[in-house]
C-alpha cells in the first residue's frame, strides 16, 4: 500500500510500547506530511542516543559519559546509596526532590520465573561498590512487589557482613488518599510499619 521507505518507517515505529499499526501509521504520516523538520531532529536524536548512551560504570544508570552526572556531583553524599529497579525510578525520586545521596540502578529485580538471577541485576557490582566506596547507608527502594521484596531481602543478606546500615522505604497509605480506597495488603503494611507520634 505504501512505498517501501514509508512501510519501513511504520514498522519501525511499532517497536514503541503502546503503538499499534494504526498509531504507527498516523505518526509516520504526520512526520512526513506536516513536520519534516521534526522528523530530521527525531532521526538525529535517536541515532545519537542509540549510539552513545550506555551505562554508568558506578551506578548502572543510563548515560553517555563513563560516569553519570549524579555520581560525578561532589555535592551528593557518597555515603548514602539508594538502590532502585529502573532509571525511571531515579527520575521519580529526583523529581520528588529531597534525596541527596547517590543511586544504584539494578535494571530489573530478582525474578526466578523469568530467569533473572543476582548477577543479571549487577548485585556483585553493588557489593564491590559498597565495600570500596565508603557507603554507610543503603536505602532499598525496590518496588513493593513480591520480586522487589525478595530483591531487598537478598541484598540485606548479601550486605549484612559489610557493616552498612540498611533501610527499606516505607509502604502505606498515599498522601491525600482515603483509607476506604486502599487495598487490604497496603493497609496491613501501613499498620505493621506504623510510627510512634510525639508532641
Amino acid at each position, binding site marked *: 500500500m505504501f512505498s517501501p521507505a514509508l512501510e519501513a518507517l511504520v514498522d519501525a515505529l511499532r517497536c514503541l510500547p503502546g503503538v499499534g499499526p494504526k498509531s504507527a501509521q498516523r505518526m509516520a504520516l504526520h512526520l512526513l506530511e506536516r513536520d519534516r523538520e521534526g522528523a530530521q531532529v527525531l532521526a538525529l536524536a535517536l541515532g545519537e542516543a542509540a549510539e552513545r548512551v550506555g551505562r554508568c560504570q558506578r551506578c548502572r544508570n543510563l548515560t553517555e559519559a563513563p560516569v553519570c552526572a549524579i555520581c560525578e556531583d561532589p555535592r551528593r553524599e557518597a555515603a548514602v546509596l539508594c538502590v532502585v529497579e529502573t532509571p525511571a525510578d531515579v527520575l521519580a525520586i529526583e523529581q520528588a526532590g529531597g534525596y541527596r545521596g547517590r543511586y544504584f540502578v539494578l535494571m530489573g529485580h530478582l525474578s526466578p*520465573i523469568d530467569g533473572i538471577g543476582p548477577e543479571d541485576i549487577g548485585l556483585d557490582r553493588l557489593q564491590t561498590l559498597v565495600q570500596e566506596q565508603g557507603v554507610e547507608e543503603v536505602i532499598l527502594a525496590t518496588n513493593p512487589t*513480591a520480586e522487589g521484596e525478595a530483591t531487598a*531481602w537478598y541484598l540485606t543478606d*548479601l550486605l549484612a557482613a559489610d557493616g552498612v546500615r540498611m533501610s527499606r522505604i516505607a509502604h502505606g497509605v498515599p498522601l491525600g488518599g482515603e483509607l476506604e480506597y486502599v*487495598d487490604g*495488603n497496603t493497609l496491613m503494611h501501613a499498620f505493621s510499619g506504623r510510627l510512634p507520634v510525639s508532641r
Partner: protein
Amino acid sequence: MQASLQPAYLLHRRPYRESSQLLELFTAEHGRVGVVARGLRRRSRGGSPGALLQPFSPLLVGLVGRGELKTLAGVESGGGLAPLRGDALLSGLYVNELLVRLLHRDDPQPAVFASYATVLGALADAAPVEPALRRFEGELLEALGYAFALDHDALAGTPVEATRRYIFEPGVGLRAQRPGAAGTSFAGEDLLRAAAGDFTGSAGRAAKGILRSALRELLGERPLRSRQLFLRRRERSREGS
C-alpha cells in the same frame, strides 16, 4: 457477562502493552491459567485491582473467555494472609517456579491447590521453612502421578528397615543398597522418620535429597533459578563461618 468468582493465587505477572498485565494464575477450578488483566492502574473502592493482585495472597477471581488466554473480569481479596518475608519469601518464589514449570495450563489440580494453600499458610506463619517445603514437594509429586513411598522398598516390595541403607532411583523409588555398592544412599532410619512426617535433622536432609532428584527428573535440564538463590546464600554463609 458476569463470571463467577473462584479462589486463585497469582503465580507471576509481567507487563503487557500500555497498562495491562499478563498474569499466570493458579485457580482452584481450572488449574494454572494465563490471563490478561486490563487497566490495572485504575483506582476503585477497596483498593486498586493492581495492588490486590500480588503473589501469595488468596484471591477471588472472575475469568471470561475460552481461548488459551482468559481475561480477568474481576478480582477480590480472598482473605488476608500475612505477607511473606525473608527466607519464607524466597521459598514462596521457589514454590511458584515449581508450579509454573510443572503444571500444564488448564489442567485442574485441586489436590495441588490445597497443598499450595497449606504451604503458603505455613510460610506466612513463619513456621520452619524446610518441613513445609518437603511436604509440598511430596504432595506435588503425588498429584502429578510420581508418588513413591519413603517407607517402602520398591524393588523388593518390603517395608524399609531402619538398619539398612537405601538408594533412590527416579521413576522407580527406593531400593536397598547392595553391600559395598557406591553412590548416594540414605539410612533406613531417616527414611522411616521422614515417612512419618518428621523432617528434622538427617531425616530432613535425606528427604530433601530424594525429593530433589525426583523433581530434577521432571524438570529436565533447565535448573530452577530460585534454588540458585538459596545455593549462593549458603555458599556465602559457609565462607563467613
